[in-house]
């Protein structure tokens, strides 16, 4: 169905890359968040986290579904989620970081949400109608994710000395994984040129502002912009992803071809 649209002029490989990156972020973060199920500090958080994970898995279905169409090898969203090995995943390293304590989970969520929000906001205006439509739906969900994670890191940052300490530590641990969000490559540049996606670099100023505001209100100190880890967007991950996939993919791998 997709090949006859005007977007066909855009480089397919670049488009596929973008869709995998966006879908894999949602999939892997959704996985991490769902690990909390039944183990969070209060019942309301159990509900909220399940809801966040649910939104992210729903977005995964849309992004990877489109990736399957664009890829043109008849792969479904499930094929892409369950039958690729780690080096074929394109998510940011940030989203595969272990959950840590609940504060670290929330901080990871906030740092990602702020970026995700800006990305989707820009994607609503994509010249690719299919992308704009997915972004429209996902943006509403993610605006709420950001509202929630922002609110919580403020309350915990400006809570007790202990909660402040934990949030500051979470921030320090995760900060070196935020730089990767803003480093584009040739594939990003091609798509940005065509108005399909914003360039990663263009999201930095907005993100800085959202983060600076929230951290100020949370009485948290923004870490210095030192060395930044990268690799996830080109398939070079941390050792954590392999364990995520061994769980995530177990059934599809153990019973190839079965339907569920």
């Amino acid at each position, binding site marked *: 169905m997709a090949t006859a649209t005007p977007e066909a002029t855009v480089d397919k490989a670049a488009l596929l890359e973008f869709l995998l990156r966006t879908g894999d972020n949602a999939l892997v973060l959704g996985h991490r968040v769902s690990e909390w*199920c039944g183990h969070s500090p209060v*019942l309301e958080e159990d*509900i909220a986290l399940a809801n966040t994970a649910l939104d992210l898995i729903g977005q995964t279905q849309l992004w990877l579904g489109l990736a399957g169409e664009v890829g043109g090898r008849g792969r479904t*969203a499930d094929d892409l989620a369950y039958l690729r090995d780690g080096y074929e995943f394109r998510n940011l390293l940030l989203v595969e970081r272990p959950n840590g304590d*609940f504060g670290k989970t929330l901080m990871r969520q906030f740092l990602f949400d702020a970026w995700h929000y800006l990305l989707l906001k820009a994607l609503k205006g994509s010249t690719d109608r299919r992308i704009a439509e997915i972004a429209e739906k996902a943006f509403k969900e993610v605006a709420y994710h950001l509202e929630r994670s922002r609110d919580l890191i403020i309350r915990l940052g400006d*809570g007790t000395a202990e909660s402040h300490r934990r949030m500051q530590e979470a921030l320090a641990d995760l900060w070196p994984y935020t730089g990767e969000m803003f480093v584009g490559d040739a594939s990003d540049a091609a798509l940005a040129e065509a108005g399909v996606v914003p360039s990663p670099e263009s999201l930095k100023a907005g993100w800085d502002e959202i983060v600076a505001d929230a951290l100020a209100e949370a009485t948290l100190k923004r870490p210095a912009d030192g060395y930044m880890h990268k690799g996830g967007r080109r398939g070079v991950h941390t050792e954590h992803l392999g364990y995520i996939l061994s769980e995530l993919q177990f059934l599809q791998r153990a*019973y190839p071809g079965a339907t569920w």
Partner: protein
Amino acid sequence: DPVERAFQERVDAGQKIEPKEWMPEGYRKTLVRQISQHAHSEIVGQLPEGNWITRAPTLERKAILLAKVQDEAGHGLYLYCAAETLGVSRDELYEQLHSGKAKYSSIFNYPTLTWADIGAIGWLVDGAAIMNQVPLQRCSYGPYSRAMIRICKEESFHQRQGYDILMKMVKGTPAQKAMVQDALNRWWWPSLMMFGPSDDASVHSAQSMAWKIKQNSNDELRQKFVDQTVPQAKYLGLTVPDPDLTWNEEKGGYDFGQPDWEEFFNVIAGNGPCNAERLEARRKAWNDGAWFRDGLTAHAEKMAERRAAAKIAAE
């Protein structure tokens, strides 16, 4: 006692009792015990199903399971709120759960070992729960009755989803079908136990019935469950693991064997396959989260102080 008689007359007349109205202490206590036990079951019930969220076989199944577990946490929330109308706080109820004083449904002390178990829990465990809960929609206590109305609607949805998982699997490979039969073998008897021992063995039943907190006997409900479930098992092409199961034309229902009540009491006593782990998981979640709850409380207090200070400054 005329007050108590008037209360009983209102119950008999099918009127709802509301939080601020007078009620016998025994009525309150029975309700608190029952509602909180039910709430705890929803919370602990997240764990066996949560065990498969990260391993769900498709994105769709993962989403459905997440939504289901989210609903269960939501049910827990309604129920704790209903219990709170009776003057007991959620924290007190947690304390009872964590100390082992309060019970939760023993079924959640069984492990989920394959994906078919997720189907079986929906089909059998939620099925049995609905059987228990449908009459509670007409419970004499208003908040509990209303909570059950919401809950039952969602539970029957969950039950259908569970059955759907199994339906897909029995139509699949031989290995998948074997997994489903294995799940039925393991979950059948614990599901029958969910209705509790025979009523002759149950101490609280008669009074609860009079108060319309309980509306049917355990055996009645168990019979109904068996009669409903056996044809569904047949439809799936499965064998119910009960050699004594036979259709009784005369009573228009199935005759069936007795669950292993020794196992039942063993699980209640803490010796089920997962009792220690379930409780430990809940305790750990609570203890590890103390700093989080304290943080939020401290922040709320600061904000209140700041607002008060701002108000004074403005005056």
